[in-house]
């Protein structure tokens, strides 16, 4: 044991760290035997200087805890982990990424039962994700964990650093990321965005799950499809077709796996209020079971709003009674209430004439264009930056023999026919 401790404390240079990891890996048995006394071993170690040692020690400690299940000990473990995750040394993590992300997962598992544990876990996990990622654009297994913690703690805003980052880089040796982690990341990101009421972006995030390369359907994809359908309806009032580059395994089977949701989308598109209500009642139990009842409710109110907006584009004046019947609302009072709410939130420009029982719709000309123009500039910048990235990737791929060989020969098997041809993709994008 003492040799291990001295090895941990003496390692300073990268070479020494590399050697340390090899030693620790070979000595895991020994650590296990001393699992109960590891707390003492950790005591003098500091997170930034002895990151590697702590990672291995705490990993073993957690395994021992899972067997013992003692609560005060668990709380100590969580405390230590917290400090480690917050102050981990990036340079050392390079040598043991798998162990580190495993520790992060264990940390979350042990933190959740603690009082307000999820909330306490958010910041360390965010820091850990940043420390493990070679660049801010890299995806790590810890990203999904951090989002999960943020969602459970309902602090969606805390997840913004991850939600706003352009997470597109993959580096398996450096981060140990798997396809499963990437799916979970985007699934959780979608949920967090729903929590922030940014349904359009949530739909995009869920769509990333649906378009990930896949040979089989799994339950994350199916759940993402359900939420994608609902978010699309809320945000854009219609469900777009799945992009053609989505894997065939997904496009072919996902619809049948989520029948209640395709029914809802169909009823929404039919513009018939009665039909929508019927579907809502028919599948209410399914929606509740899937934990989507809230989103479905928002869909229903999006439908009502869509009806009113459509009428406002068609009519200048309309009696509230007619409005209610045309939009499939119960009574004139209900229609009036909804109309006022929409007008208050600036979604519609309308007035109500109580004396004559009339709704007056003003010319619908959206918000001021100055604001829009600023938004446009920002978007242009994003687009230019992304285009540069695409070009770089394109050039890199053109010279990457192994990738070309893989996509061209294995293309069909991987279901990658459509995403094949990064050439096409990049060029299409560039001219758009």
């Amino acid at each position, binding site marked *: 044991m003492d040799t291990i401790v001295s090895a941990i404390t003496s390692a300073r240079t990268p070479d020494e760290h590399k050697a340390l990891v090899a030693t620790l890996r070979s000595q895991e048995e020994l650590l296990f035997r001393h699992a109960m006394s590891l707390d003492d071993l950790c005591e003098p170690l500091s997170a930034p200087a002895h990151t590697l040692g702590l990672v291995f020690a705490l990993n073993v400690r957690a395994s021992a805890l899972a067997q013992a299940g003692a609560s005060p000990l668990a709380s100590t473990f969580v405390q230590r982990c917290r400090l480690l995750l917050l102050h981990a040394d990036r340079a050392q993590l390079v040598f043991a990424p798998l162990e580190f992300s495993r520790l992060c997962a264990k940390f979350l598992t042990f933190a959740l039962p603690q009082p307000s544990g999820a909330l306490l876990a958010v910041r360390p996990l965010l820091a850990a994700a940043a420390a493990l990622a070679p660049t801010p654009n890299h995806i790590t297994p810890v990203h999904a964990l951090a989002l999960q913690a943020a969602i*459970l703690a309902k602090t969606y805003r805390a997840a913004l650093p991850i939600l706003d980052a352009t997470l*597109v880089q993959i580096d398996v040796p450096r981060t140990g990321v798997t396809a499963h982690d990437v799916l979970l990341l985007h699934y959780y990101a979608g949920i967090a965005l729903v929590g922030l009421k940014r349904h359009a972006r949530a739909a995009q995030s869920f769509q990333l799950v649906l378009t990930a390369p896949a040979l089989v359907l799994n339950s994350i994809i199916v759940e993402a499809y359900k939420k994608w359908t609902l978010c699309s309806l809320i945000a854009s009032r219609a469900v777009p077709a799945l992009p053609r580059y989505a894997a065939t395994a997904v496009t072919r089977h996902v619809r049948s796996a989520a029948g209640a949701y395709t029914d809802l989308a169909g009823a929404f598109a039919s513009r018939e209020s009665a039909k929508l209500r019927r579907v809502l009642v028919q599948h209410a139990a399914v929606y509740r079971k899937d934990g989507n009842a809230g989103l479905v409710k928002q869909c229903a109110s999006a439908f009502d709003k869509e009806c009113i907006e459509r009428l406002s584009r068609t009519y200048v004046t309309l009696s509230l009674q007619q409005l209610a019947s045309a939009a499939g609302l119960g009574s004139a009072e209900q229609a009036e209430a909804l109309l006022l709410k929409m007008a208050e939130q600036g979604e519609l420009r309308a007035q109500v004439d109580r004396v004559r029982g009339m709704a007056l719709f003003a010319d619908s000309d959206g918000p001021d264009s100055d604001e829009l123009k600023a938004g446009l500039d920002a978007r242009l910048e994003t687009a230019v930056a992304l285009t540069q990235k695409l070009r770089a990737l394109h050039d890199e791929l053109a010279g990457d023999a192994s990738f070309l060989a893989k996509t061209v020969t294995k293309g069909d098997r991987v279901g990658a026919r459509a995403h094949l041809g990064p050439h096409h993709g990049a060029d299409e994008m560039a001219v758009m």
Partner: protein
Amino acid sequence: MAGAELVQSIAEAYVGPAKVQRLLFIAEHSAELRQPALRLALTELSASLNTALYSDVIDKRLAGACAELGIVRNAAWVEATDRRAQQQVDKIEHDLSAAKTSLNKEAIRSCHNQLGDLHAERGDYGAALKSYVRARDYCTTTQHVVGMCLNVVKMSVLLGNYTHVLTYVAKAEQAADAAEPQLLGQLRACAGLAQLESSKYKLAAKKLAECASEAGSAELVLPRDIALCGGLCALAALSRAELRKSVLESAPFRALLDGVPRLRDAINAFHAARYADCLRELEALKPELLLEPFLHSHVDRLCAQVRTKALVSHFLPYRTVSMAAMAAAFSTDLPALEQELVALITDGTISARIDTAAGVLYAQRAEGRAASFRKAARMGDEYAHEAKALLLRVNLLRADLVVRRDDQHGHGGGAQAGSVGRQRGFAI
């Protein structure tokens, strides 16, 4: 034209398979004309070699009506005719093999054509088509080629195979020279009918409006029918300027239209913006239109298009229109008109809004600036998302991170994902 006269005129004007087809079509689609049409059709059939259709009509297609008329199948005639036809086929095939051994191109061609004619008369249009197409390799002059094409086109029309029609019309038009106006006219009419069949009304109108009276042929389609189809398509699909240019100012087609005074009046009324008259004439013409085999399945859609076009053209020059006046101009009532207008506004055909309190329709001049700003912003967002998705996907593929069945790292997958929401019950 009254019903009985119509049947009589068809029986007089058409010959061959087209006559039988039309009469049977009327017998099937009009209860009141069933008996006279059926009787004429069977007379015609029993003078032909088409025993298959004869038996089919009596035993299946119109078995009820035949029983009412007391018509029974003449089995002896069927058998005798079949035998006779078979003898003819044998004879021609014998000639054909003789011609083939002596390598006489012209004889081979004529045998194939004779065989085609015979099959056509027997009602086996598919076999006839094959025979005519076989003659193709033995055509020596352009006239032969055009004749072959016309034969193929006729068979394809009878078979209802309209894609064939267009390819062979194009072939014939390449081969034919201007010296054959009648042939060209017939081909054009067939092309127009093919476009009509595939619901491309604008193309059909243009093709048919180029036809003159010589485009009709008793074997396929009469000038009057060309006028009906062409006129209705033009009314439904052409703009007012096009209507004037290709219909009203085209002397040959005007001559054709004079054969159908009602439709001519409707077109004139439309052009003069008297929409109520136009729609009234069209309504009166409808029973006759429905008995036209080429138009039958399109009549409702075409008439609806005419009405929509009339509404749009009526509203076009105004900024505000009183809906009561508009309802009067279209001889309808306010609620019905409002419903029609709502449908048109919703699908974006007209840009207007309704003031129900005042009963006024306001034209809405689209304010393009804000809309295009918004559109650009949306495109930008979509681009950013697409680009991000592309980068991610390519990177996933490069690292070979594909969702597989045996995902070693899968710890429960979506079951876990789904359960987060359920167990913790966070509000979504």
